[in-house]
């Protein structure tokens, strides 16, 4: 009975345009991740000043200005990469994309150095005190997300070097770049909470 | 109308509750039989709340029942009823009325919260520190130098000249909750998070309750007994608790076994070598009606059973079976029975 009904859809003189699935899903993922980070930030702020023993943030933390500049610049470079890709400039795209990965890798390398110093020189581990627990958890959670992003970006770089990436993929890579921008935004929050407020 | 509702609600709740005396068997733990101001404040508020919810229930269920009967399909004539898509006036009406009800309820509630969480504290109020353990209650009277366990004694409070008892609540391990319904609502005992509550019972008697926050295997038998004594009885009890442990020569062997076995790792007996704090203080063990925090009456048989095999009375409690010989069990029991 129903299957013989005509499809009229006469309402569709105006084009039926819905948001892109990738973007909406990425915003959904970002919302979920933001909720997770919020909980870790709340725990960090709640425990500021409550450690029963040292070392304390003021004693051992030095704001990683250079590393932060690197990471936040990578948001710019990824934006330039996509602008290039959108206008068919593939080699420029590869260069800016690689720069993004390099900047992210510098950030990770710097974090590793900072942690090495904290653990071996200052004696601060995740089990030392409340500061240690919340610091390594929050910064570590962010670093984990940076790493996951770098893995994704690197896969795209390899595909690009193998000439499998073209202008047609701009939309999808734009969605991936949303994730990267999110990671950088989270760093702004983490930096403020850990190195400014908490110190 | 309000009076009728209140009276009906009160009648209904009272028939489900015990009378005002704690010895009435119907329910010694009913929340509708308060003998102390906090419990009574809650009771009064609850009547107001119950009146409102009952009224809402009667009206809405009445409408539902009417709809189900009046608008049932009677003929199968295939004629569809008139579609009604909505009405903003009706929606407004049944938004505004609930908002007003919420405002009334909220204001009543806020008032009671404020009065209960910020009570006046007269200078002769009694201070007791309650420390929750898995699965027993430690009571300290800091101003009076008394440490005891499991059975709390407080003085009765005359409403004309109140002498409330303020309890500071701490925990040595997991979360617990102090709930004696006829005296007050419950307040949790959380490690590293001191809480406080107060009671001012105006009738003597024994009031029952139990731990109300799951704390581990024997949460169910972490029972509460609060003895509300007359002034004289309370003072006498305090005096008795402050004395060091009685020394009775006849039980010297039992005391020796007690002090040379692991008992002293957990238990304290004032004025002796036993100074363990993990388990209940036993200095005046025989002043208690029950053992194992209310798990069993304090009788000769139960005491020996407890020493021989704690899991028989309270499986999963922190008291280990001490694997004493039968002679030693009796000796230690005799010793404990001398601790009056």
């Amino acid at each position, binding site marked *: 009975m129903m299957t013989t009904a005509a499809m009229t859809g006469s309402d*569709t003189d105006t084009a039926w345009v819905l948001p892109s699935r990738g973007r909406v899903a990425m915003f959904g993922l970002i919302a979920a991740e933001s909720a997770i980070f919020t909980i870790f930030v709340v725990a960090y702020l709640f425990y500021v000043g409550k450690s029963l023993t040292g070392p304390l943030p003021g004693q051992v933390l030095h704001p990683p200005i250079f590393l932060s500049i690197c990471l936040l610049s990578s948001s710019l470079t990824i934006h330039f990469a996509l602008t290039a890709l959108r206008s068919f400039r593939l080699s420029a795209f590869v260069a800016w994309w690689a720069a993004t990965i390099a900047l992210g890798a510098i950030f990770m390398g710097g974090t590793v150095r900072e942690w090495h110093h904290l653990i071996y020189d200052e004696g601060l581990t995740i089990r030392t005190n*409340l500061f240690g627990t919340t610091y390594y958890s929050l910064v570590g959670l962010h670093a984990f997300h940076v790493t996951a992003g770098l893995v994704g970006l690197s896969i795209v770089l390899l595909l690009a070097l193998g000439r499998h990436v073209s202008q047609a993929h701009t939309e999808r890579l734009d969605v991936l770049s949303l994730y990267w921008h999110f990671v950088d935004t989270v760093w702004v929050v983490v930096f403020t909470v850990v190195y400014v407020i908490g110190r | 109308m309000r009076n009728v509702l209140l009276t009906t609600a009160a009648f209904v709740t009272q028939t489900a509750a015990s009378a005002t005396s704690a010895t009435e068997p119907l329910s010694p733990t009913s929340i509708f039989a308060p003998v102390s101001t906090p419990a009574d404040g809650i009771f009064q508020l609850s009547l107001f709340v119950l009146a409102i919810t009952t009224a809402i229930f009667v009206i809405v269920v009445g409408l539902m029942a009417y709809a189900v009967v009046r608008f049932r*399909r009677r003929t199968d004539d295939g004629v569809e009823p008139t*579609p009604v898509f909505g009405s903003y006036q009706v929606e407004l009406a049944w938004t505004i009325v609930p908002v007003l009800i919420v405002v009334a309820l909220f204001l009543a509630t806020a008032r009671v919260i404020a009065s209960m969480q910020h009570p006046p504290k007269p200078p002769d109020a009694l201070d007791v520190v309650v420390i929750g353990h898995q699965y027993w209650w430690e009571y300290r009277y800091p101003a009076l130098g008394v440490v005891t366990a499991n059975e709390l004694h407080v003085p009765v409070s005359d409403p004309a000249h109140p002498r409330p008892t303020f309890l500071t609540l701490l925990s040595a391990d997991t979360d617990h909750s102090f709930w004696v319904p006829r005296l007050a609502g419950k307040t949790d005992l959380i490690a590293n998070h001191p809480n406080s509550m107060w009671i001012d019972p105006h009738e003597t008697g024994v009031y029952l309750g139990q731990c109300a926050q799951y704390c581990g295997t024997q949460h169910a038998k972490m029972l509460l007994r609060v003895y509300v004594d007359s002034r004289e009885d309370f003072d006498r009890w305090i005096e008795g608790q402050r004395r060091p442990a009685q020394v009775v020569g006849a039980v010297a062997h039992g005391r020796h076994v007690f002090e040379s076995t692991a008992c002293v790792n957990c238990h304290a007996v004032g004025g002796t070598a036993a100074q363990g704090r993990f388990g209940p203080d036993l200095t005046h063990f025989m002043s208690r009606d029950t053992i194992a925090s209310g798990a069993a009456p304090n009788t000769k048989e139960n005491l020996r059973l407890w020493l021989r095999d704690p899991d028989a009375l309270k499986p999963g409690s922190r008291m280990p079976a001490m694997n004493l010989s039968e002679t030693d069990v009796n000796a230690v029991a005799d010793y404990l029975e001398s601790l009056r």
Partner: protein
Amino acid sequence: MTTASITWEVSDVAPRSLVERLHEWVTTVDHKRLGVLYIVYALVFLLIGGIEATIMRIQLVAPHNDFVSPQVFNRMFTMHGTTMIFFVAMPLVFGFANYLVPLMIGARDMAFPRLNAFSFWLSAFSGLLLYFSFLGGSGLYGAGDAPDVGWFAYAPLTAQTFSPGHSTDYWTLSLLVSGFGSIGTAINILTTILCMRCPGMTLGRMPLFAWLNLTMAGLVILAVSPLSAAQIMLLVDRYLGGHFFDTQAGGSAVLWMHFFWVFGHPEVYVLVIPAFAAVSEIIPVFSRKPIFGYPVMVAATVSIGFIAMSVWAHHMFTVGMSSAGNTFFVLSTMAIAVPTGIKIFNWLATMWGGKIQFATPMLFCIGFLFQFLIAGLTGIMLSVAPFDWQLGNSYFVVAHFHYVIVGAILFALFGGFYYWFPKFSGRMYRERLGKLHFWLFVIGFHLTFDCMHVPGLLGMPRRIYTYEPGRGWDTWNLLVTIGVVFQGLGTFVFLGNLVWSYFKGDTAGSDPWDAWTLEWSTDSPPPAYNFALLPAVKSRRPLWDLKHPEDPDWKYEQ
């Protein structure tokens, strides 16, 4: 020329072997198949959770009973709660959403079919992981050791000191994995609804079922994540020596409570909002009237979603928050009663002036209305913080939330089962058995959960494996246990009806209820591609417009 339709004779296609058919199910990315997988999974765990409940009720039938030890009882209430919420209610909700949302919005499938399958298998695995604890909780050679810390696992009971071994870790890891599955499904539902509606299906025209599941998806995204965060913190404490909830190191047990309930309260809305969704579709069809106040229903739902994120600490009234804190949460909790009440009135108004048919789906919805009202009223009692200082953590609370989860949610989902079973299977269920299920369950439900309120009022706390005689609790507990028998019988009638009807029921046709939303325009069960032809969508009831071209909705809708 006849309408071009190609018909396959069944004999044209070689019968697929059992292995091939299983392989299809295991590798499916079809939202309808995944929906069925979720639902069947949930029903299996419903039986298991029911057994756990029965064990508890037998133990509590009399004071000082020794049917099971305290250790076993404590594992039972932990597993029962965790199972029912995460492996029964959530999969049911996701299953119905998966099957019906794409059909109702005229879509071909969900937005991300492979993510859909991945999310299902994550959730399925996590349930098995939880139950493996019975075998592996004390290590490979230990005796079975399921978690026994309660479904909300308060610190510091979950610290290594108080919960050695691995039982708590099974709880933590299983829910962590399940949480990721839930978030994946929620993102899928969100994206599908926002991005895959058929032409003409504006947000203002999509069925309330879609709106409600959209809200649910948003809540999952915002609320399950905090639980994941808290569980990561718990694992850091238990295995890396962290101090998030370590009171000895200055940590806070109350912090866990906040984090858990920031998840835990919206979670109950995640469960109840899809129940509202089923009811919002069924009541109109069986009253033969459109839903009353569609825009207000949407607004009420969305506000419930928002307010739900702000009420969590009403689970913590006894914890010792300041009077300001307590007062705030009283206000937010009472506030949420307003949009919820509006919805009840709107459902009632839908029935008002209608021609109500008391088929099984409608019976369950009427039961839902009655019981959800009562659950809401006991919720209002609990929102009055001082009253909660007596009632909290007692059997009154247990009765209240079972009234919501069983009396409201399960009843609504039963209604949904009967309503959409013809669509899923192509067969009609047996109506008389459906009614028998309803009445058995109503009797059992009320016997158990009405009586359960009273011990709470008389001072009986929850999570106790036994209780003292002489407190007036004995008879009430006996009645509560007796009710279990009726509910069990009703459940078996239900399952038997489903199974029998699946094989032997009458053919249902595409639209047995004369309903109005898009899923009824296609075959029963729908073909893999869902729609060969989509009806025009110009109103909220596209099939009404088709069947009543002289009086279409789009002339009247605002």
